[in-house]
């Protein structure tokens, strides 16, 4: 009996060593594998890359539609909405030389509602107060309804109307690209289109 139990223990110890060694060599490989797995699996968003053709320039946007995630993948768009106006503006307000501050917010919004997408983006460049005005949700809602559709009136986009507008615009550009390819019946362009989307 004694000999058998000794033999069993030896075997157990040996197996332990084998496992330990296995794990030791195995673990780095496992980590490597995990890194290579794409991390965006299992989330309900769609990624759209588009290249504006008609606009003649590069317009690449990663669009989140109802993504629910609040990470600022949206370049500056989303971040801009959340960012707070620095204290410096409050100081400037007191000295009050700017025309923009003398105007009532309704007027500003009203005037901005006549601007188009690139103009509003440029306007937000001028200073933080202007950016706040140019990022006004109602202005973007109005612009969305003007440029796209009036149907989605009851909808409230998670990340605000500006992000929603940009996402829709990106999708529209992709659609336009796609229809152009169909119209031209170009196989090579279609292949290119498919690979670009991925």
């Amino acid at each position, binding site marked *: 009996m004694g000999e058998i139990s000794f033999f069993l223990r030896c075997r157990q110890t040996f197996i332990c060593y084998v496992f330990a060694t296995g794990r030791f060599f195995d673990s780095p490989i496992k980590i490597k594998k995990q890194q290579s797995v794409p991390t965006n699996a299992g989330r309900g968003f769609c990624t759209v890359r588009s290249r504006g053709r008609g606009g003649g320039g590069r317009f690449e946007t990663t669009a989140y539609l109802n993504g629910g995630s609040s990470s600022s993948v949206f370049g500056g768009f989303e971040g801009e909405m959340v960012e707070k106006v620095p204290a410096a503006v409050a100081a400037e307000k007191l000295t009050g030389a*700017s025309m923009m501050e003398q105007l009532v917010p*309704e*007027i500003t919004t*009203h005037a901005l509602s006549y601007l188009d997408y690139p103009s509003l983006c440029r306007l937000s460049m001028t200073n933080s107060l202007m950016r706040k005005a140019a990022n006004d949700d109602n202005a973007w809602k109005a612009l969305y309804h003007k440029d796209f559709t009036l149907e989605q009136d009851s909808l409230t986009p998670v990340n605000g109307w500006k992000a929603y507008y940009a996402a829709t615009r990106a999708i529209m550009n992709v659609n336009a690209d796609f229809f152009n390819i169909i119209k031209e019946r170009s196989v090579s362009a279609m292949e290119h289109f498919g690979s670009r989307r991925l």
Partner: protein
Amino acid sequence: MASTTETKQKKMLILKSADNDEFEIEESVGVQSETIKNLVEDGFTFVPLPNVYTKALIKIIDYLKKHANKTDSNDEEIKTFDKDFVNTTFDDLFELVSAANYLHISCLMNMLCQTIADRIKDKSPEAVRKIFHINCDYTPEEEAKIRKANAQAFEGQFDESLD
């Protein structure tokens, strides 16, 4: 109500600007402004306008008079008048738009806002800053970041003029 003036059976209104100048206009002209209309309905004929300065008020009364006599035949004339009306400096436009907002004259409001929007539409951020008399409160890093985020808005040539 002592200042009520009756001429040729037409009801007249007195508007008083922020600089204490008084203007007499016909009621039918004045009621194009919602603010004045409400006061008239409450029986007022003397209307103090503490937010509207004489300079803007003169122009606005001109506008109201022109638009009160709107018929099918003078459509072109009014269009020309409107074109001249908004052909002014940005500072004047801002003053007019504030006054129009206070007086609730929606057609004038729409026209002025449209004009302002059209005129800043193709301007560079630098020009817009000068027009609105605003200081850039961004650091160069912040500015670069926002410029990058709005890259597609910076294609092509921009208007650097200030009028």
